[in-house]
């Protein structure tokens, strides 16, 4: 690994001017749990590493009444997992965080790092997309807000420019009668990367038993986390039964684009998309119904 020059900015402004100066030759390092591994394998060889862990102002989460939850990019996954407030107001986020790596990884890995590394298997991405979360990207020139649905462009690729920093994730308050479930499937459990990851978010109408909105977001089995929109479409506005869930799960599997890899053949993964999608939909529907 290395050699590289290491910077430790203490403010966002300092980090942004370093990013402007070193651009493509630099990599931002938050917890480093992904980056250090990739640098050691020489998959990335930055000349400059900008360690942002010391920018304490980026480690927070708070609730804004009108706009929901705001999470600073340096918030680690363990904090999300264990926060009683998130457990109460955004139950689905701790539920995702519990499936992320191991405790020692979650203590260090950050939400911003997980999103910016943009691995197709990034565990935080599918549920945040299902929740219509947005990312706040800043550079010296200003800021822009990008829906996470449009943030990922391919394996390891995002719309983040080389001089930009993802500083905050904004998550709108889910509507009433909504529940979300993420399930990551691995072949041997533990902290293995996902073979398939599916997030679903289901909203019921207040008057009848129709599903008014549904999101199904696939991770790992697509180049970049992606909504299975055709599967969503056949559920939306309908009374949900098991037959319809089975149908939606099959459509989601057809929408996925898995590749053969060491963690599973494409055919196997596609079949697992069907199984996992079916399971998360069942769980989400059961939860929303029992909560009514």
């Amino acid at each position, binding site marked *: 690994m290395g050699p590289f*020059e290491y910077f430790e900015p203490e403010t966002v402004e300092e980090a942004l001017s370093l990013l402007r100066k070193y651009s493509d030759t630099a990599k931002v390092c938050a917890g480093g749990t992904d980056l250090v591994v990739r640098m050691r394998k020489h998959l990335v060889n930055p000349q400059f590493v900008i360690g942002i862990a010391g920018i304490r102002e980026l480690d927070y989460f708070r609730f804004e009444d009108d706009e929901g939850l705001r999470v600073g990019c340096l918030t680690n996954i363990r904090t999300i997992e264990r926060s009683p407030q998130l457990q109460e107001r955004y139950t689905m986020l701790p539920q995702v965080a519990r499936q992320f790596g191991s405790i020692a990884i979650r203590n260090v890995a950050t939400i911003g790092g997980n999103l910016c590394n943009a691995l197709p298997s990034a565990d935080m991405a599918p549920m945040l997309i299902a929740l219509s979360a947005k990312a706040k990207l800043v550079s010296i020139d200003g800021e822009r807000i990008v829906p996470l649905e449009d943030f990922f462009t391919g394996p390891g690729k995002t719309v983040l420019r080389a001089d930009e920093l993802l500083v905050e994730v904004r998550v709108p308050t889910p509507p009433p009668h909504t529940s979300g479930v993420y399930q990551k499937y691995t072949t041997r459990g533990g902290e293995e990367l996902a073979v398939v990851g599916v997030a679903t978010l289901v909203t019921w109408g207040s008057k009848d038993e129709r599903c008014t909105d549904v999101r199904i977001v696939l991770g790992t089995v697509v180049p970049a986390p992606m909504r299975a929109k055709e599967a969503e479409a056949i559920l939306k506005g309908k009374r949900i039964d098991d037959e319809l869930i089975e149908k939606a799960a099959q459509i989601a599997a057809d929408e996925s684009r898995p590749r053969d890899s060491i963690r599973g053949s494409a055919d196997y993964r596609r079949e697992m998309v069907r199984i996992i999608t079916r399971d998360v939909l069942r769980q989400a529907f059961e939860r929303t119904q029992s909560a009514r």
Partner: protein
Amino acid sequence: MPGEKGIYMKQRLELKVNGQTYEVLVDPWQSLADVLREELGYTGVKVSCNSGNCGSCTVLLDGKAVKSCIMLAPLAKGKEILTIEGLATESNLHPLQEAFIEHFAVQCGYCTPGMILMAKALLDENPNATEDEIREGLVGNLCRCTGYVKIVEAIMAAKEKMKVTSSR
């Protein structure tokens, strides 16, 4: 500017390990595990996979378990680092260490420091952890001798001892 001409400067770093403060000169790409082992001689920190999978390099930073092989050393700045060497007092082993001996929870021993420190973090956070919670908490620590049963037994036994010790 160093770096621009391909000149890379070592960085001065203050680290607090097992209650002692050190000043070391490190290459910024050295991992915390490397610095602890190679610069400071804490060879109880084991490096096995060197990619954050096996947990043998686990140390505690301010009481929280981290994998020191995939952490750049500067991230430990200002934190209390605990390695296996800092666990026993001069006269007494830690209850976890005693329990690992009593329950034959050590085979080749390579995963042991990481296992014990991970277990300490788990029990400090949740003194009443169930066996399932302990097993779940250990998913990031691999024993290549596959001696998990004894390890879990040892941790369960140490849990009771630690409760008695802390209630004194």
